[in-house]
C-alpha cells in the first residue's frame, strides 16, 4: 500500500501540513501547494451543495489512473486530511483514521501548537513517518 503524500487543511482551507512519502507525484513549490489546498477547499464546498443526495458531504475520492486522492473530513468539520496514494488501493480509510488519531494525539495535546497554524510538531512527524514508511 503505497502512500504518496499527505496534506492537512484547516477550517479556512489553508494548508497546515504537507509531506511527501514517496516519489510518484510531481514536486510543486510551496505556493503551489497552498493554491492546491485552497482550490480543493472550494471544490469540496461546491460539491457538498450541488450533490443530488440531500445531506451528503463533499468530494471524498478522486481517482485517476495515476493516483487516488482520498479526503477525510472530521466530525467537527474543521480539518480535512487529503491522502494521495497509488490507484486501486483498498483500506485508505484505515490510514485516514490512524492519521487522524496521530493528529489528535501529537498535535492537539501539544501546548506549543496554535490551532489553525502550520503544524511544526516533531513528535507528529516522527510518529507519522514510523506509521507510513513500513507500508511502502
Amino acid at each position, binding site marked *: 500500500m503505497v502512500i504518496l503524500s499527505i496534506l492537512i487543511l484547516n477550517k479556512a482551507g489553508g494548508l497546515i501540513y504537507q509531506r511527501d512519502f514517496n516519489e510518484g507525484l510531481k514536486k510543486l513549490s510551496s505556493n503551489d501547494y497552498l493554491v492546491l489546498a485552497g482550490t480543493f477547499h472550494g471544490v469540496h464546498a461546491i460539491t457538498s451543495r450541488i450533490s443530488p443526495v440531500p445531506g451528503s458531504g463533499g468530494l471524498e475520492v478522486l481517482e485517476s489512473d495515476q493516483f487516488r486522492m482520498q479526503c477525510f473530513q472530521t466530525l467537527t468539520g474543521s480539518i480535512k486530511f487529503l491522502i494521495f496514494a497509488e490507484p486501486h488501493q483498498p483500506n485508505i480509510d484505515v490510514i485516514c483514521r490512524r492519521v487522524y488519531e496521530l493528529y489528535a494525539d501529537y498535535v492537539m495535546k*501539544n501546548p506549543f501548537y496554535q490551532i489553525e497554524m502550520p503544524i511544526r510538531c516533531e513528535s507528529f512527524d516522527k510518529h507519522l513517518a514510523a506509521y507510513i514508511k513500513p507500508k511502502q
Partner: protein
Amino acid sequence: MSNLHHQPPASPFVPFSPIQPGIPTSTPPLSSQKTPQLGTSNLRFASSRKSIYDRHLNRTQRSELSKASFSFLFSEMIQYAQKQVSGIQDLEKKLNQQGYSIGQRLLELLLHREGRSAKREVRVLGILQFVAQTLYRHLFGKPADGLEKSRENEDEYMLIDHDPAVNSYISVPREMSQLNCAAFVAGIIEAVLDGSLFPSRVTAHSVPTDQFPMKTVFLIKFDESVLEREAILQQ
C-alpha cells in the same frame, strides 16, 4: 490547578491595638462570624449533603485516570503558565510550583494509605526509594527506571525516567529546546522531599539517547543540613 482567589479566611480575633485610656475599644462578638454557607463556598455538595471531605480516603486508590484527559489539562496548565511568565527558567519554575502543591498533599495521602507499616524515612537512600517506588507507582503505575548517585558531588542524586508520561504528547519547539515539561513532576518530587524534612532542589533535564529519545533525569540536590544529618547517622 491553584485557586485564583487568594483571600485569607476571616479571623475570629481582632488585631491587637494599644488600649488608650478613656476610649472604649470595640471587639466584634464572635457570633457575628460568618459560618460558611452552602451557597457561597466553592465546595460541591451531593444531594445527600456530603462533600468530598466525607469520602473515604482509600476510595480512589484503585482508580485510574485517562492519559488523554491529563494531557489536555496539562497542556492548558503549560499555556496558562506561559502567559504569566517570560523565559524558560521562569516557565519551569511555574510548573515546579504547580507540582509543589500537589506533592505536599500527596505525601500525606501516601503515608496515610501505608497505614501501620508506614515508616518515617530518615536516611537519604530511604526517602529516595520511597520516591522512586511508592510515589512513582502511585503517579505512573510503574516504578522509576533508575536511581543513581552523582560521582562529582556528594549532595546530588539522579532519578531516571526513560519515558515520562507527562511528556508523551509534547513536542517542544526548537527555540525552547532547554525546556522540559517534566519540571511539573520535579515539583511533586521536591514537595515530597521537603515535606519529609529533606530540603532540596529538584530539576528535570532531558538526556535523549538512541534507545530512549525522551529520557529524562531528575537532578535532586540536597541541602547541606541533609548531608550533615546523614553523616551523623552514618556512625
